[in-house]
């Protein structure tokens, strides 16, 4: 599995996947969940897919029977889930405010 350059947007997308690592996600549903437009979300999904963090699969349906084309789903791979949790933990620690800027200091201000 390859490294991916982690940005806030990538973390935001990974956060959606880690809510339920087994749940397959559609691109449009992720757009709605993250608020990102297609031009921002799909390149991220592409990078994560090529790096092996995500697995992309075509729905196993008969389009004629379902009355719609088969959509593609994304789900975290086993390694991807581990790396996603690590990155979220590391970056969450990095981005959390220092103690002197915490809620207590705001309340006391």
């Amino acid at each position, binding site marked *: 599995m*390859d*490294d*991916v*350059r982690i*940005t806030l*947007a*990538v973390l935001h997308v990974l956060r959606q996947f880690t809510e339920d690592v087994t749940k397959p996600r*559609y*691109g*449009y549903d992720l*757009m709605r969940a993250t608020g990102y*437009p*297609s*031009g*921002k979300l*799909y*390149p*991220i*999904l*592409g*990078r994560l897919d*090529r*790096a092996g963090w995500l697995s992309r699969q*075509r729905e196993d349906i008969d389009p004629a029977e379902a009355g*719609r*084309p*088969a*959509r*593609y789903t994304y789900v975290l791979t086993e390694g991807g889930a581990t790396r996603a949790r690590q990155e979220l933990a590391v970056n969450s620690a990095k981005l959390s405010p220092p103690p002197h800027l915490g809620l207590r200091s705001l309340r006391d201000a």
Partner: protein
Amino acid sequence: MSATLLIVLVPLAVGFALARAVLADIANEEARTRLERIPFALLDLAARRVPTKQREDLTGEWNAELDHIIARTEGLPLSRLVRGVRFAAGILLRAPDIAGDLSRLRKLGTTAGRIASGALLAAAGLGALAGTLWLAAKNPPAVVIAGQVSVGLSWFTIGVMVAAAKTATPWWWLAPAGLSAGNFAMAAGPNSPAHIGFGVLFGCGVCYLLYKNRQLQRRIKSLKALIDAGDVSAFTREHDLLFPGCTECAEIILTAQMKP
């Protein structure tokens, strides 16, 4: 009015009204169908921007998602159009990035600008032509002036768009600002202070943009040299300085890191 004439005119009027209603309905249907095809047409254009081997797979996914978006807005034609176009336009602008097409490094920072400037140029040209024709029909002697204004605006638009695309400057504020300034200056009449001032400002603006473009091209050249030499950390550092917040080049960095 004689009874005979009434017998002829009434069916004619009814027939005319019916034909008019039917034609309007057909025209509405035609317009609606064509509008609904716009997002799919944008996805077709996007497909041309990705490598052939990935085309079928990616367009399959995009079209299925668009189909889903459209199905969710059944009975809401405007929402359907807006959401569909928004989805497809995003894909169109970033298609090479989605496919991980590394050849885009050649045109770093200018892809979106080129597409957008092309679309705006076409729209501005059509607008100028329509304006000229309208003025010509309304007031024939004005056609010469209208033509001059239109040609002037068109050239001005071309200048601004080319400069914006070359410098990767956000076209969405340059274009309307430029067009407004151009309209204002043209309306003030030839040799007026506004006209002259605009000419001077435009000239200076183009020179500045070209100068910035040259600087940008030099820095992109040095970036390319870094990645060719395999100096990933220097590339990343320089890249972040040059394009803060850009996440499009992660694939380039990844590929360079994987090189033996």
